[in-house]
């Protein structure tokens, strides 16, 4: 009875791939799927039904030796301690995995932040240039994901053309640098402002549109930007792109090595995180969340909805523009190829994967989605195939995102 649905599914998949792969490979795929599925089923049965029956009826995890000390120390006034004593734990006993956090010493967020920051600052000294570059690109995407997190995660506006602002920032710095010799330190804020202006204009155009209509207009926007970059040869050099963009410099020190750019993007990322955390906790951040949760109710409470929506769009665009200027400075080269709809989707996937509206989530999502394909590089052709499959699996097993926040209140009279 366990085997039948699995067998049917395997047969079905085998039939689906048959015209593309031929009989031999289709059989091979089916057999490997069958074996994989059987192993998975076997493992689930073993862990959920057979193992718990042996010896300990409650669970799986064996308490480490120090647990006794922790339980003893937390006895008394501490609510965690009293919970632990209720379970009357003894050394070597088994408890539910989900209860283990009651006993483990909790790391405060501050300590975690300091540890993360320290390891990020030391990391490039231990890594080779290739991995530093990967981390730098991940840093760019962290800034992008955090910016998009404002628009999508906080204000709830589905923006599919976010990369367009990234492109605008990159090209703005590239053109200003090539034609007027502007330095990076002037170009970066300027690129951000220009991108923000575009965001403002697009925000005003899309004011009246709701939900998915907004999505398609932003999708149109990225297409239009991509097309203009590709075809306006006199300004953008078309598909050839712009070469020899100046690297940033302070006095006589010029940013050349990967490690220089790593520390630059690290500080830009920290700045982004700092500003967004403060924005998130401010009146503006709360207004955005109110709009996301219920636009009508927010309006009734006196929040100027359209103004805050445009603001979300504009600020998101600004971060993308700044990330774009860094991209242009780091690679000294921009071409339309880097700014496609697929990139937009990738950034959106980072935000959703991490958990919408969550800042650590956006950081985690960006890091995972940039570093994961690099780790899969050994698989050559199968890299993107596996990436697509993993994206689906991650969504199925954790649809709300890895670091989703729990809603504080949920008023739903219908359910």
């Amino acid at each position, binding site marked *: 009875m366990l085997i039948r649905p699995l067998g049917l599914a395997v047969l*079905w*998949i085998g*039939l*689906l*791939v048959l*015209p*593309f*792969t031929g009989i031999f*490979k289709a059989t091979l795929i089916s057999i490997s799927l069958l074996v994989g599925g059987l192993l998975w089923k076997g493992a689930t049965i073993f862990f959920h039904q057979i193992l718990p029956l042996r010896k300990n009826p409650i669970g799986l995890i064996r308490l480490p030796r120090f647990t006794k000390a922790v339980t003893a120390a937390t006895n008394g006034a501490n609510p965690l301690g009293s919970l632990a004593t209720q379970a009357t734990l003894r050394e070597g006993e088994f408890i539910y995995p989900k209860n283990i956090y009651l006993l483990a010493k909790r790391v405060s967020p501050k300590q975690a932040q300091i540890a993360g920051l320290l390891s990020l600052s030391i990391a490039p000294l231990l890594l080779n240039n290739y991995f530093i570059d990967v981390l730098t690109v991940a840093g760019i995407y962290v800034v992008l994901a955090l910016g998009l997190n404002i628009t*999508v995660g906080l204000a709830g506006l*589905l923006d599919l053309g976010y990369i367009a602002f990234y492109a605008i920032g990159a090209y703005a710095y590239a053109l200003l640098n090539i034609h007027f010799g502007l330095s990076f330190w002037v170009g970066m804020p300027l690129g951000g402002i220009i991108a923000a202006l575009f965001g403002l204009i697009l925000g005003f*155009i899309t004011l*009246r*549109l*709701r939900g*998915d*209509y907004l*999505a*398609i*207009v932003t*999708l*149109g*926007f990225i*297409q*239009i930007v991509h*097309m203009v970059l590709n*075809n306006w040869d006199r300004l953008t050099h078309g598909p050839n792109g712009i070469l020899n963009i100046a690297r940033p410099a302070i006095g006589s020190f010029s940013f050349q090595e990967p490690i220089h750019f790593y520390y630059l993007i690290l500080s830009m990322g920290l700045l982004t995180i700092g500003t967004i955390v403060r924005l998130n906790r401010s009146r503006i951040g709360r207004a955005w969340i109110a709009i996301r949760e219920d636009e*009508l109710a927010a309006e009734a409470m006196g929040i100027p909805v359209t103004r805050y929506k445009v603001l979300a769009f504009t600020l998101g665009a600004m971060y993308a523009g700044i990330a774009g200027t860094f991209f242009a400075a780091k690679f000294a080269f921009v071409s339309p190829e880097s700014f496609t*709809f697929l990139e937009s*989707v990738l950034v*959106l*996937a980072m935000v*959703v*994967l991490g958990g*919408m509206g969550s800042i650590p989530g956006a950081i985690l999502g960006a890091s995972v989605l940039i570093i994961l394909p690099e780790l899969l590089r050994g698989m050559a*052709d*199968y890299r*993107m*195939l596996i*990436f*697509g*499959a*993993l*994206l*689906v699996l991650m*969504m*199925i097993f954790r*649809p*709300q*995102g890895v670091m989703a926040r729990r809603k504080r209140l949920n008023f739903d009279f*219908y359910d």
Partner: protein
Amino acid sequence: MLLQQLIHGLILGSVYALIALGYTMVYGILGLINFAHGEVYMIGAYLAIIFLGILTAVGLTSQYLILSLFLAFLGSALFCGAYGFTLERIAYRPLQKAHRLSPLISAIGVSIFLQNYVMITQGSSDKVFPHLLPEGGIQIGGMIHLNPIQILILTVSLLLMIALHLFVTQTRMGKAMRATAQDARMASLVGINIDAVISTTFVIGSAMAAAAGVMVAIYYGVVNFSIGYVAGIKAFTAAVLGGIGNIPGAMLGGILLGMVESMGSSYISSEYKDLYSFLLLIIVLLFKPTGLLGEKVNEKV
């Protein structure tokens, strides 16, 4: 010249309309954008090449051309229907209760997967479609020239649209679909099997996309694993243009889009071919935010 361009636009438009129907039906029922729909269309085109290749090897195409074309259409539509069914099972059904952006991401995952799967199994170079239909065609009024392929595309898409219209308005399943689109919870309360309705929607939409894929493959003669992306975006634009969730709207939007694109690229500049459709979309949405035929939804407080 003008009329000829109009005909070209009409053909392009009916292909867009067929794909757009899949988007609009799924949106009408689930309220979600099916991002993997363009890939289903691409798979349809590939399947047509594969099936016609087999039929040619058997020797059927030289003797019974119409029959073998019909078989290719049928096979491609059946397989794509199965792909659509599987897509819904994998990427949408487990996420029914999740936030509405989650299925979007899983559909994108499926889309990336399918693109690479076709690239790995069929190679990344262009596939050339066998040249089957005879040259020639008919002249209308000395102005318009229609070749057999164009006649085929126009008739097949017209027939499919009429069939879909009849299905949705006349059959029991069609009624269930309309009820689900109006209010899924209410429909389930009166005994409609929502899951079956959703599956049917995906299967029909995918079969339509397959038909479009087959016809485009015959029309242009080449197929590439990346054609699904642009076609998907255009068709989605067409669906929104007509008012997403609205079936006649998708047909109208598709044909309008094809016309504008054909006119724009022949009279203004073909470099900005894709620009006209989006400009049209933005202009329409500015004046009518719900699309051409979309109804205004009053929000309940």
